[in-house]
């Protein structure tokens, strides 16, 4: 008597399921591309519609060089663009050193244990906190300083930059930690075995090796900061500002805040203005991402060579 066969290879379904899965993945990928094309198309169409007579480029130029106005023909984003660039600079200065520093400490210095796990868990949780909550925090902490008038920064660029800095800090910490973890332990050991101090190992080997990953994370985080509207509304980005910020203690407005303000105007001609603002914001984001790619490639090449 022959024993019953244990193997029942379902060859047909196996062969069919592979391509089906591949196709599903392809659909998932193209859905992103399709959505992006629709978004760009819609925005560009709105801009073209909103710029009768003139070309879209002329309209963008006009939007970049004029302040806010109740007249859609005159309205623009000059103050918001300047405010967003200021915020970008301030956030870069606050969040990158602190975030990268915290990640280096957690990965390279902190002894493993309960305390490190608790800190780690909290950072991961902070990364998921809604941005409006950071806005309330920024309002209480930076704008009003819990009622201590001397310490309060008021609704200035300082307060906005610090709030956005706090918002993206956990993202930078986590991205940097991920990048540091990809640096092989053998590299650290090789350097330590030559009599290098921990700081020398981190400075000359770990950070340069992790730099492409760190830069990617940092640029993604900065892009998020640039696009945030809700926390800036909380910490007092102004609705109507008719001059450029003179320094970090000036009042300000930001590009997404202005887009929001224009978009809720009842006059339909403002829709074209808002769409133009979105194009400007997208252009800013794409420039940042392109810069990141260039820097990353340069780093990757120099660490190989």
């Amino acid at each position, binding site marked *: 008597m022959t024993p019953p066969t244990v193997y029942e290879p379902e060859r047909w379904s196996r062969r069919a399921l592979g391509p089906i899965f591949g196709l599903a993945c392809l659909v998932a990928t193209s859905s992103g591309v399709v959505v992006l094309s629709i978004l760009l198309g819609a925005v560009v169409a709105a801009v073209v519609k909103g710029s009768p007579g003139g070309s879209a480029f002329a309209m963008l130029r006009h939007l970049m060089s004029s302040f806010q106005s109740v007249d859609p023909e005159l309205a623009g984003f000059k103050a918001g663009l300047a405010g967003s660039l200021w915020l970008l600079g301030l956030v870069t200065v606050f969040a990158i050193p602190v975030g990268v520093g915290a990640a280096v400490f957690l990965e390279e210095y902190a002894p493993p244990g309960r305390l490190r796990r608790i800190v780690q868990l909290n950072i991961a949780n902070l990364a998921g906190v809604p941005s409006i909550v950071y806005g309330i925090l920024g309002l209480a902490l930076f704008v009003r300083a819990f009622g201590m008038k001397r310490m309060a920064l008021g609704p200035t660029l300082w307060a906005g930059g610090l709030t956005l800095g706090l918002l993206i800090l956990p993202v930078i910490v986590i991205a940097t930690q991920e990048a540091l973890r990809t640096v092989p332990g053998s590299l650290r050991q090789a350097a330590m*075995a030559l009599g290098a101090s921990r700081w020398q190992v981190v400075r000359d080997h770990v950070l340069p090796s992790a730099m492409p990953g760190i830069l990617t994370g940092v640029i993604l985080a900065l892009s998020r900061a640039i696009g945030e509207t809700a926390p800036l509304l909380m910490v007092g980005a102004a609705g109507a500002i008719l001059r450029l910020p003179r320094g970090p203690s000036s009042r300000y407005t930001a590009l997404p805040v202005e887009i929001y303000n224009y978009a809720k105007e009842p006059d339909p001609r403002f829709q074209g203005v808002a769409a133009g603002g979105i194009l400007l914001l997208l252009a800013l984001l794409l420039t940042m991402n392109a810069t990141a790619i260039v820097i990353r490639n340069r780093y990757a090449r120099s660490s190989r060579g």
Partner: protein
Amino acid sequence: MPISDILARPVESAPTPAESTVLTTNHLSVWYGASPALKDITIDIPRNRITALIGPSGCGKSTLLRSFNRMNDLIPGARMEGQITFDGQDIAAPEVDPVALRRRIGMVFQKPNPFPKSIYQNVAWGARINGYKGDMDDLVERSLRRAALWDEVKSKLNRSGLELSGGQQQRLCIARTLAVEPEVILMDEPCSALDPISTARVEDLMDDLKADYSIVIVTHNMQQARRVSDMTACMMLDDLSNGNGHRTGIVAEFSPTDRLFTNPKDPRTEAYITGRIG
């Protein structure tokens, strides 16, 4: 003489006769967390000789090697008991800086791990961070020549160290170690990732280097231990004597290499080298 005087004595004044010892372990035991890795190791590593550590997997050869330059300090939960002296100085003494110790006791790893930098920078980096003030070009050339790599790389010093072959990478790692002028070189299975020709070159190099350096090499390859070493320590796992079933590394026998392989005193050594265990 009070202990503090002995400890404060400069290392250079230690006696260095021809057959002196450079590293000594005295009842050394090492734990990783609660589990013991090495038990009661007492051996003397001779100066300007090649000492091989052989034995089956997991018997603590690498642990012993990494104790010598305190690389085990980097592993959380590792701790040691007993004493290791280097040139007569207790390496665990509070005034000994492990960073400074590691310059004087260099290490070559199992898998070649050059820095992702140029060949020149691979050699120069260790010297620079240790405050080398002399002519760097000269030091790089001397180190590469000493590691028998100069002729192969002299025309491409600015190319990445990662572009070299495995055997060349390992010699680059040796050159990098030589550039910080250590007294001892610890080698953790340096040839296990290399082909036979590269292995032969590294072995020739070791033989050449022992005039100036003391070498300790961990190897799984008993023929290699036999070919290159002067002294051999055969390590074993102890019998299940410590209750919890965890077995600990011990030194079964430590003898001149030719004697250990031809006339082993310890039956476990004999069983290992004849291939009955391990």
